[in-house]
């Protein structure tokens, strides 16, 4: 993965209310969301969020309802004005752009997929897919010709003349995806794009997205509150709580070292054997005994191999070279569920 930073979020604050600027200082000096609401009648949307998103990666943002996910993603294309902070994209602060520059940025550099699809009900599938191009001033015929490729790519060939109301939810979101891809923007913003779909369709759509990403290498910011979805598609996961970013890292890091009880609760119910990779639980010790397994092998697959060979260790390899040793003990310890420090959920 190339690790040039594409999107850099710096000290971002968003406070909703009549006089948000006046509240920033209180938040900076440690006032939390419940207190701000109770004492000052303002809603804390984002609290000092800092996040670097590498180019061509898929960044997942998670959190419970009301934690500020939608607010955060809408700052990236500035559908929401910040109270304080910076949003540097390709070296330019989006939050300081002029109106014209921002319009240009939205037309060419970032496109968005919405939870409830946000399709234009009076435009056909073909017209919807071409929407971004018509907004750029390309005439409807040419725009539709160019968007046809994406209609085909998301599997909607033959439905060009249908209206959104005539399609199922999954198909509507394919239109939403095609519309976002048509502008060739390098950044794709997806706000719970698959949350409204039923599980099977959602799974399909995740595969569609992963296939596309393999081919297109966009910088994708993907919001979800479904951990399984996050683990399936995300290179990196950031977790928000009450507008505060409580942890950020790879799925493996978060599962092995949850930052606090909130995160611990989040990862309670996942199947750890199926997610954790031996590369995350290995030690640097070199060993010559045992089967050789790639560092990406999940524990669920590693255990039967060890057991079949009556081995205590596996040699962890990366690109064919040994990089460390994963012991049976380490694997078993890793799959034990972490316990909440406090019995009652104090963050509620």
């Amino acid at each position, binding site marked *: 993965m190339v690790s040039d930073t594409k999107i850099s979020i710096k000290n971002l604050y968003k406070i909703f209310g009549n006089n948000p600027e006046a509240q920033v200082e209180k938040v900076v000096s440690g006032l939390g969301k419940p207190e701000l609401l109770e004492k000052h009648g303002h809603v804390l949307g984002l609290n000092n969020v800092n996040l670097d998103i590498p180019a061509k990666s898929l960044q997942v943002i998670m959190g419970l309802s009301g934690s500020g996910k939608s607010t955060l993603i809408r700052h990236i294309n500035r*559908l929401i004005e910040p109270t304080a902070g910076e949003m540097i994209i390709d070296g330019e602060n989006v939050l300081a752009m002029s109106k014209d520059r921002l319009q240009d940025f939205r037309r060419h550099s970032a496109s968005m997929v919405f939870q409830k699809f946000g399709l*234009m009900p009076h435009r056909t599938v073909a017209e919807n897919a071409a929407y971004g191009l018509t907004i750029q001033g390309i005439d409807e015929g040419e725009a539709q010709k160019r968007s046809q490729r994406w209609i085909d790519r998301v599997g909607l060939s033959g439905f060009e003349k249908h209206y959104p109301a*005539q399609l199922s939810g999954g198909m509507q979101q394919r239109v939403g995806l095609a519309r976002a891809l048509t*502008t060739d923007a390098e950044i794709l913003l997806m706000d719970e794009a698959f949350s409204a779909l039923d599980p099977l369709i959602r799974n399909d759509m995740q595969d569609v997205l992963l296939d596309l990403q393999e081919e297109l290498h966009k910088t994708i910011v993907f919001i979800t509150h479904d951990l399984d979805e996050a683990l399936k598609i995300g290179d990196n996961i950031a977790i928000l709580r009450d507008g505060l970013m409580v942890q950020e890292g790879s799925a493996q890091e978060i599962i092995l070292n949850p930052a606090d009880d909130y995160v611990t609760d989040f990862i309670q119910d996942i199947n750890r054997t199926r997610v954790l990779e031996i590369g995350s639980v290995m030690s640097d010790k070199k060993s010559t005994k045992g089967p050789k397994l790639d560092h990406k092998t999940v524990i669920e697959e590693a255990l039967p191999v060890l057991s079949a060979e009556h081995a205590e260790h596996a040699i962890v390899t990366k690109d064919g070279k040994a990089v460390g040793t994963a012991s049976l003990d380490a694997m078993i310890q890793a799959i034990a569920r972490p316990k909440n420090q406090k019995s009652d959920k104090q963050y509620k």
Partner: protein
Amino acid sequence: MDFLTDFPSLGRVTLLTFKKTIDGAFREFNRAYGEYIEAFFDPLLWCLKWIDWIFVHMPWPLFFILAAGLAWLGSRSIAIVIGTIVSFALMGMFGMWKETMETVAIVSVSTALCIGLGIPLGIWMARSDRVQGIVTPVLDIMQTVPSFVYLIPIIMLLGIGKVPALIAVFIYAVPPVVRLTNLGIRLVDSEVLEAADSFGASYKQRLWGVQVPLALPNIFAGINQTIMMALAMVVIAAMIGAPGLGRIVLKAVQNQYLASGMMAGLAIVALAIIFDRVSQAYGKRLQKHREGGHGV
């Protein structure tokens, strides 16, 4: 006890001077500016006369073709087209052709005026809560003040004639199209608007590409009501000089011509039904895309 039963009014003399002052001031205003105001409305008068002339002098078969064509374009329903032709034929047979044409002319012009001014006003209202706050009570007043009350200053300023009649119809009929344009635009799904914004739509692209098209069914409901109200005003408009079916009714009231009054009344009802059915059917077709199901 007298004090409690007789309300302490200002007194006859005071009230009289009060009223006289207002009337005098208005007359003064009229004397100073009446001419300019009349000149201001001249283009309207010219336009009205011209359209009136076209309808009255149009060969009736041509009118039938036009009416049937429009009814078909609007409704795509054979039943409505036949109903339209039969109604107009009956009005002609009973000797009201010229009056019917005059009524169609004034209703068309006033509807066009209402749409031309009402829709932009509605759009402006939807854009700004301040404008909405100011315009809404004005519309309330326009709809509740008895029309005879605003006829007085209109007649004082412009005399009896087609333009004052048109203005009276306009005041009565414009509120629905303004209100429903405003409402329709405000009701547009915010996520769809957000999507338009996220793709960098300009203000104009947002208005004409999303808000107005999605508000169209509501705007059409407003236009439909506006037409109905314009038709409802034709008798009152006749009192201050509008030609047409209303004048027959007025004459019938003054002379107790029962049959003639009834016929003209029925003709107005028939016109209303035609306008209503055609414009409603058109409005419904506009929102076809909202229905689920297949087959485009």
